[in-house]
């Protein structure tokens, strides 16, 4: 359960997020849509404190995950990020072998011995629907895989440390349609075990994969509701104009 309360976010003097509050239920897929620069990715990165890496930024408000404010001083950021996995826009496997890519999170978090790691790697690759394609070349470089496979590898890598939440920042935007539909299928299957939040600029994708959709514009959360309702009968005029493509 993620609960954002009155979040403001600034890049220097620019206010990127304006008083955003939102609740995300466990084991659902939530999609964020909106035009470029609307703050949807910034908001996503609030949940694993990825914005901390950017200099000269400032955040106000609270973000609770399972009741705990993740911006509290007592929070260990590394543990937070272990629990809140992330998949990025462009596939970013490490320049290591396929096996080591998936094992990485387990190693840096000191999770288990050699046999445990081997087992987890296999499980994660299976969960990411990649096992059959790579089981014979686990020691090959991750860069020998296709773009779509690389992205599924990145998903497997995130799954390996058993997070409860997975954030996806336009995970299919660099992929061809077939790889995209594989990723979407994967998201659909992972929904039973994980809370997934996905940023996408493909509205049909949001419609296909998500249970709830949030529409952002100019740093504001314009509308947040059930995806079916959003795409059949959005409440706000702005939302309607955006999703039907009559902007401006």
């Amino acid at each position: 359960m993620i609960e954002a309360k009155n979040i403001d976010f600034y890049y220097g003097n620019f206010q990127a997020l304006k008083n955003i509050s939102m609740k995300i239920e466990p084991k659902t897929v939530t999609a964020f849509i909106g035009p470029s620069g609307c703050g949807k990715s910034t908001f996503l990165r609030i949940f694993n404190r990825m914005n901390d890496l950017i200099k000269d930024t400032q955040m106000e408000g609270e973000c609770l995950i399972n009741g705990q404010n993740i911006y509290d001083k007592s929070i260990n950021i590394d543990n937070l990020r272990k629990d809140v996995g992330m998949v990025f826009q462009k596939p970013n496997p490490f320049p290591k072998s396929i096996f080591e890519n998936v094992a990485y999170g387990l190693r840096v978090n000191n999770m288990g011995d050699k046999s445990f790691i081997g087992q987890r790697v296999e499980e994660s690759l299976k969960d990411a629907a990649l096992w059959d394609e790579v089981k014979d070349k686990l020691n090959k470089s991750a860069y020998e895989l296709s773009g779509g496979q690389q992205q599924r590898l990145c998903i497997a890598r995130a799954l390996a440390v058993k997070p409860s939440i997975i954030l996806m920042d336009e995970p299919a935007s660099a992929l061809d349609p077939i790889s995209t539909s594989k990723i979407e299928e994967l998201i659909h299957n992972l929904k039973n075990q994980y809370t997934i939040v996905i940023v996408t600029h493909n509205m049909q994708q949001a419609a296909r994969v998500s249970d709830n959709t949030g529409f952002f514009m100019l740093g504001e959360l314009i509308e947040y509701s059930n995806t079916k309702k959003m795409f059949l009968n959005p409440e706000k005029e702005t939302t309607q104009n955006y999703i039907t493509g009559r902007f401006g």
Partner: protein
Amino acid sequence: MNHKEEELKLLKDEIIQMWKLVISQLEKAKIAFLTNDVELALEIAQTEKRVNSMELKVERNCENYIALYNPVAIDLRLVLSIMKISISLERIGDYAEGIAHHIIDRDCNNIDNELIEELEIEKMFGVLLNMITNALVIFDLEETKSSRKILKKDKEVNRIYKMAFERLESYVLKNPKDALCGLKLILLIRKLERFGDHSGNIVEEIVFFLDAKVLKHKGKLE
């Protein structure tokens, strides 16, 4: 207006054209029935083919629009309602044709004017024409305020329909030789009643399109 909207406008124009044709069919049917004009009835039967082909065209264009433009929200609702409205309009066209054949058959030509008066058939025609024309107006203006008023008119149609049985029964009992005519008349009135239902459906589709509210099967509006 962008390309997508232009296509949608074309779709809308098409259904409006079909709508107007159906209204004119109905007006002709009314006149043909009241004046026993076989010529006009034959014309109606001819035009019915055009209504049918227009329905096919609207349906095909809707399918294409969905396939190519992936409409959502109000656009999706508009396309869906256009599809359903076209089905209802086609049905209404069929009824108009049915009425025309009733006249063409010439086996019930000299019905007592008093009986027609008593059955309130002209009034029924009037109410229905009013319903379908007003439905077109709210569709075109995209303004659903008067939708309830239109839907209420269906009650009037139903009232006339129900009364028709008693009146025809007493008429046929008095004039047994006109029994066939009586049966035919009840069929005609039945058609007009169905027509009223379809007009109601059309209004409901317009409400769905504009307000995304589903009025169907809610025990009809009170």
